[in-house]
């Protein structure tokens, strides 16, 4: 066994892996935030609550209806996405012509309501969710033990992130979306139903958050507060990366997760704050964010 800077490799790679897993959640969540912000011009404060809803819907599917993890992985984002569509149509659409700060305040209120309701119903101690039987166990890679489920989370989030990138950058629907982000009035003049596009975009962003929630359910316990602090870290991630670029959001998400994991190994006291400190440094050096366009 070799040692690296006095750290046993098991611990090092274990934390790197955890960091990458956190990073994949940062990536999916900041991607959803960026997509929503691009078209709706609001920051979706309820994103953390919707991530939590994804985990809870998966838990409910299993415990109330006996629906397994794999079906929940599809169903939960769909259900939470539909919830998002309703929220957009009933509430957010009314703010279309107002200062975008009102969108932040509205979704903050929604997050309080959702989290409060779940806390009343399920308490705040957290509910266990088993790893699906196909993904239990792990591989011994010689230098570390790789649990199958964790490998799956990283692979699945990478695929979802890249699929989102492909959808937005390479397809016709994505072209409409980018056009509407650039100039909604003109896009509408070309006969594209922009309000529908806006609603679907919000639903899609919310569904992404719920998907991350289902992935997270077996790793962290299912807890009404699981999204509340996470969303603030994701905000910092978004500030660091800037919301201009899809690939930028993905790279920033994974990169910061990795850095956070490494900090846990070498200087654990700073693990909770390292992303905020990086945000401060980025603000000093490149205020627009690493991948952001100057405003």
């Amino acid at each position, binding site marked *: 066994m070799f040692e690296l800077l006095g750290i046993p490799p098991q611990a090092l790679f274990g934390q790197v892996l955890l960091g990458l897993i956190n990073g994949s959640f940062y990536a999916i969540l900041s991607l959803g935030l960026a997509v929503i912000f691009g078209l709706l011009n609001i920051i979706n404060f309820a994103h953390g609550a919707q991530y939590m809803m994804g985990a809870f819907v998966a838990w409910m599917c299993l415990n109330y209806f006996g629906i397994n993890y794999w079906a929940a992985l599809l169903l939960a984002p769909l259900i939470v996405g539909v919830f998002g569509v309703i929220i957009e149509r009933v509430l957010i659409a009314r703010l279309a012509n107002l200062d975008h*700060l009102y969108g932040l305040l509205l979704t*903050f209120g929604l997050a*309080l309501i*959702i989290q*409060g309701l779940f806390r009343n119903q399920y308490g705040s101690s957290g509910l266990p969710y088993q790893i699906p039987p196909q993904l239990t166990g792990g591989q011994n890679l010689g230098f570390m033990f790789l649990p199958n489920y964790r490998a799956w989370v990283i692979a699945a989030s990478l695929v979802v992130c890249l699929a989102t990138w492909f959808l937005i950058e390479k397809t016709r629907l994505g072209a409409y979306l980018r056009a509407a982000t650039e100039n909604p009035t003109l896009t509408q003049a070309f006969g594209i139903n922009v309000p529908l596009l806006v609603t679907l975009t919000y639903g899609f962003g919310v569904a992404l958050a719920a998907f991350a929630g289902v992935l997270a359910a077996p790793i962290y316990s299912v807890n009404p507060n699981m999204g509340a602090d996470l969303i603030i870290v994701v*905000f910092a991630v978004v*500030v660091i990366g800037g919301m201009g670029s899809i690939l930028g959001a993905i790279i920033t998400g994974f990169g910061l997760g990795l850095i956070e994991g490494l900090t846990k190994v070498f200087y654990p006291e700073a693990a909770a704050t390292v992303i905020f400190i990086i945000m*401060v440094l980025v*603000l000093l050096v490149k205020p627009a964010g690493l991948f952001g366009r100057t*405003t």
Partner: protein
Amino acid sequence: MANVASTDAPAAGLAVIEIDHGTARLHRMIFIGIAIALAVAPFIAYPVFVMKVLCFALFALAFNLLLGYGGLLSFGHAAYFGMASYVSAYTAKNWGLTPELAILLGTCVAALLGALFGALAIRRQGIYFAMITLALAQMVFFFSLQTPRFTGGEDGIQAVPRGKLFGLINLADDRTLYWVVAIIFMAGLLAIYRIIHSPFGQVCKAIRDNEPRAISLGYRANQYKLTVFVLSATLAGLAGATKAIVFQLASLTDVYWSMSGEVVLMTLVGGLGTVFGPIVGALVIVSMQNYLASLGAWVTVVQGVIFVICVLLFREGIVGVIAKWIKKPL
């Protein structure tokens, strides 16, 4: 700085136009009304409750100075409120400082923190500004969580002595302490009123309404933004430091993001960008919390619902609606 000073003159003229005689008289009457209410309040209501309202009202007034008159939505004002609260509690308890010195020190720390965070946050605008202030405040929260030797960790700093004002007047009695808090509150309110209606305040409003135009007129927008940010953080700190002495407690709740959300809610309910709105908002929200305290997590739900209703249907807030009604700025 020279060009800022030279362009202050037209702004001063603006201030004269904005506040006509009728409005000035109305405001004077309101101030007298508040003073009378403050004098009567401890005899008809529980003094500790009134002091809680006053502390949060001052906090909301400070927040509203930044959002309503600077146009900057900070989602991290708990950082200044909470940090000042910790400093004042810590120095009063461990260093044995008299309450006025503890409060002063807490306020100064909040001002420094405000200068530091403000300088960072104003580098971005709009929605990013809100996210940055929130993230910085969360950093303060984690700092507080991880330094239990200073903050007491999960327990907070408990049993903070109220001490003797100037080493002479014992504040252990609620009534005595009340007068101190009432004076601090009134001084804060008057300071904010003065700031808003000063040439400086007028320039801030100009920057809020049209930043490129204000810059083209020669105003250094960033300097004004930073100054109003620091003023707001300082007054939020004053509120937090006073709160620590009143409740003899500083805890993690004071620095958590939910506290930042609460002050936004108070300002929104009372009336964004009105002078007196945050006081009404604080009264409404603190009373609500008192009455609903037994409902546990439902308080969060109710607050969320109020947020949604205010944003969708009631954006002017209580005082904003009254101001529209009597056609005078309040």
